[in-house]
């Protein structure tokens, strides 16, 4: 005989304001099987949990229902509570009367009535719950970091410093990412390379870190603690173990007209190249689209000159397969394409540039050796106009609805640096709002205005057009309420950022959920900000949302802490809610294995007694509970209903359906 206890939480006023919690608890008392029903202000509090524990013991409860917030919030809490009181943790069901009830309904009667139905539904289910035991699975003590920008570098270093092996998979020929392209960093104006490159070197020299550059994740199997990842090592046509990074190949290569992507295409580079001076690994790579030898078979000059004999035109993509316990995603961002923003004349005017292009123009290792010269004629610009929020906070559909977060600060930085280096330059900034939350951020911005005399204009720019070689920036000044046109030599667009497009593939491979803007979704916006809902997958940097370097580094270290916490364990508890076949009924038809994404189902020949001393050998399905993830795809494929899912059995779901529909 079932003895069910029901616990209705007020959640302060969150539930109690719209659901008559006392009435719910009282009404439920008469439900068959319910022997105890109570309401309390905060069930998740120490006292609330104590109340549950006591009731379990005093009333010999066989199952409990907590009417509270979402099970995604506190199911684990109440399971632990039950366990502490000696009840199997899987004899707990949550009725979500907050997110799915009190918070969305205004009418008290209506919400109360619904809460009663939701609690009844949970009771119907819990009556069919069975005690479950979590299994164990071993943890592979190695982490994978996808992306070798500052986020990936920081996470890898922290994990490796804790003594665990880490692989960094970077799709480009070098690690460093976007930060390597920056000139200076706000709010301290440190040289970006000066603070980044030591970390890159640390990665390369760390005995626990393996950098797989020019590589991409191809396939991911397994689950937390036991991921099996296939990595494509793209052919770079240079033997990584032989190349000394002497750059003679770059000098001799006759095909020098490739766009230098590291410099945002502002100058050219040879077909064989090392992306930048401090690249890690300091190994050349050949662009097969540009290489004469690879395209026509004739040339081979770099091979002739390479003293190390590192050039290998025959190199093919190779694959490595490795096991990991945890995965950090740090795939970073790119500035959006400006195709939808013709009004700024970016495509037509060479002197309309993006902020990232400006970074390269200001950088000593950039195309102009750090001298600010405008792209069209190589002259010093005398009037520079910045336009903020290009594609950010844009609800028109052309750009991104979100704030890119970093643009206000880097624009202030740019303005300040230009005024510092070229005091005779006039700098204007069009802005919607200046957003400077952060330590020393507003102070930084104020310095730009007050100390460096940067002209901030509140207003939006309608049009940038070329008139007699001058860029006319036409916009509104909302403070003075007038339309103005600024004759400029250079226009810099603070372009919105978006997740690196390869994130879609990575998200799919990892089954990590993604939002409408292609940012990876965190497990909880406030309380689990670096964890993906997919166990064992962690998020660092802009792949999760726009953020600056300090935030990215903090998040990366937070990820590392999570990963270390995971890898420090020898075994993980597995989800006991897995598929289970009833062998007596199984046909062995093998349809279920066809839909299992994890290969958890195999078939075995088993002997069955038929009665009368006869036996029969039948092929039946067998589920590996350590591999099964509990999706239930097999249960529906199975025509006889042989395959069921623990914790979400057909009967349980049917009983919920019945409880909801019953009028």
């Amino acid at each position, binding site marked *: 005989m079932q003895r069910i206890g029901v616990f209705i939480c007020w959640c302060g006023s969150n539930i109690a304001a719209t659901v008559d919690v006392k009435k719910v608890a009282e009404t439920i008392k008469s439900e068959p099987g319910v022997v105890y029903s109570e309401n309390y202000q905060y069930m998740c509090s120490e006292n609330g949990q104590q109340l549950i524990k006591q009731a379990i013991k005093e009333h010999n409860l066989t199952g409990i229902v907590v009417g509270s917030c*979402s*099970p*995604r*919030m506190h199911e684990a809490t109440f399971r632990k509570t039950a366990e502490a009181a000696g009840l199997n943790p899987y004899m707990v069901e949550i009725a*979500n009367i*907050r*997110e*799915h*009830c009190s*918070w*969305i*309904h*205004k*009418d008290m009667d*209506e*919400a109360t*009535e*619904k809460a009663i*139905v*939701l609690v009844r*539904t949970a009771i119907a289910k819990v009556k069919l719950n069975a005690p479950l035991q979590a299994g164990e699975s071993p943890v592979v003590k190695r982490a994978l970091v996808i992306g070798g920008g500052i986020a990936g570098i920081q996470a890898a270093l922290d994990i490796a410093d804790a003594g665990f092996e880490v692989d960094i998979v970077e799709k480009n020929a070098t690690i460093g990412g976007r930060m390597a392209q920056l000139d200076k960093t706000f709010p301290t104006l440190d040289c970006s390379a000066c603070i980044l490159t030591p970390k890159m070197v640390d990665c390369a020299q760390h005995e626990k870190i393996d950098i797989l550059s020019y590589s991409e994740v191809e396939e991911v199997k397994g689950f937390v603690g036991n991921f099996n990842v296939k990595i494509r090592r793209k052919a770079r046509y240079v033997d990584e173990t032989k190349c000394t990074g002497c750059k003679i190949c770059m000098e001799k290569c006759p095909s020098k007209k490739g766009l230098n992507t590291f410099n945002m295409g502002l100058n050219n580079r040879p077909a064989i190249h090392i992306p930048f001076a401090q690249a890690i690994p300091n190994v050349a790579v050949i662009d097969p689209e540009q290489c004469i030898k690879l395209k026509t078979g004739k040339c081979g000059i770099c091979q002739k000159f390479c003293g190390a004999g590192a050039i290998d035109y025959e190199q093919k993509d190779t694959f490595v397969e490795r096991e990991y316990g945890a995965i950090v995603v740090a795939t970073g961002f790119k500035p959006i394409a400006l195709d939808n923003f013709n009004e700024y004349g970016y495509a037509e005017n060479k002197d309309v540039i993006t902020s990232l292009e400006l970074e390269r123009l200001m950088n000593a290792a950039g195309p102009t050796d750090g001298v600010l010269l405008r792209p069209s004629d190589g002259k010093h610009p005398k009037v520079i106009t910045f336009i903020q929020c290009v594609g950010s906070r844009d609800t028109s559909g052309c750009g991104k609805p979100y704030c890119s977060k970093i643009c206000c600060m880097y624009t202030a930085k740019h303005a300040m640096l230009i005024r510092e280096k070229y005091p005779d330059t006039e700098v204007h900034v069009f802005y919607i709002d200046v957003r400077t939350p952060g330590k020393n951020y507003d102070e930084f911005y104020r310095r730009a205005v007050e100390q460096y005399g940067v002209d901030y204009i509140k207003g939006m720019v309608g049009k940038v057009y070329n008139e007699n070689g001058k860029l006319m920036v036409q916009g509104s000044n909302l403070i003075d309420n007038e339309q103005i046109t600024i004759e400029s030599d250079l226009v810099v667009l603070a372009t919105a950022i978006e997740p690196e497009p390869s994130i*879609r593939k990575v*998200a*799919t491979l990892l*089954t990590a*959920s*993604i*939002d*409408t803007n292609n940012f990876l*979704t965190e497990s909880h916006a406030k309380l689990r900000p670096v964890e993906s*809902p*997919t166990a064992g997958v962690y998020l660092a940097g802009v792949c999760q949302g726009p953020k600056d370097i300090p935030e990215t580094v903090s998040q990366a270290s937070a990820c590392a802490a999570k990963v270390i916490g995971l890898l420090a364990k020898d075994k993980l508890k597995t989800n006991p*809610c897995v598929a289970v076949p009833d062998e007596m009924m199984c046909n062995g038809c093998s349809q279920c294995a066809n*839909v299992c*994404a994890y290969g958890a189902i195999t078939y075995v020949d088993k002997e069955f007694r038929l009665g009368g001393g006869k036996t029969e050998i039948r092929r039946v399905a067998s589920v590996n509970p350590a591999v099964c*993830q*509990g*999706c*239930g*795809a097999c*249960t*529906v*494929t199975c025509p006889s209903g042989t395959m069921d*899912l623990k914790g*979400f059995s*057909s009967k349980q*779901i*049917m009983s*919920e*359906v*019945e409880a*909801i*529909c*019953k*009028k």
Partner: protein
Amino acid sequence: MQEVTTKKKEFTPNIVAFCCNWCSYAGADLAGSSRLSYPANVKIIRVPCSCRVNPTFVLKAFQQGADGVILCGCHPGDCHYVTGNYYTRRRMALLFNFLNYMGIEKERTRVEWVSAAEGQRFSAVMNDFVKTITELGENKRLTDLRVKEGE
């Protein structure tokens, strides 16, 4: 008195929504924490994945007097279980087509993909579905007379 009778006669449909744990249930949670309302006659059943929803559950809901059944899962390609919702998509496309072939109004059944970040969409989908079913009226075709007798 007058008011009570009219209220009684007014048809409020009973809607069963199967939501996958990882996307749509979380989307419903987000709708809740964002206070985005939808009618109280939508009741959610949590399943690990939309692919856990057996056609028998859908039929059971109708048998027991549900007026509409909606399945929500992760967007195709984003399934927490890699491929689960792809199977859901085929199963339900065929099942719903088939139910319509048996004369069941096509509007009574629906599949929507709602991600964990789409609280707004969850609420909009549910409001729209309730509106559709309210206009359609009571489910009389795929229902068990013995259940209805209890009214």
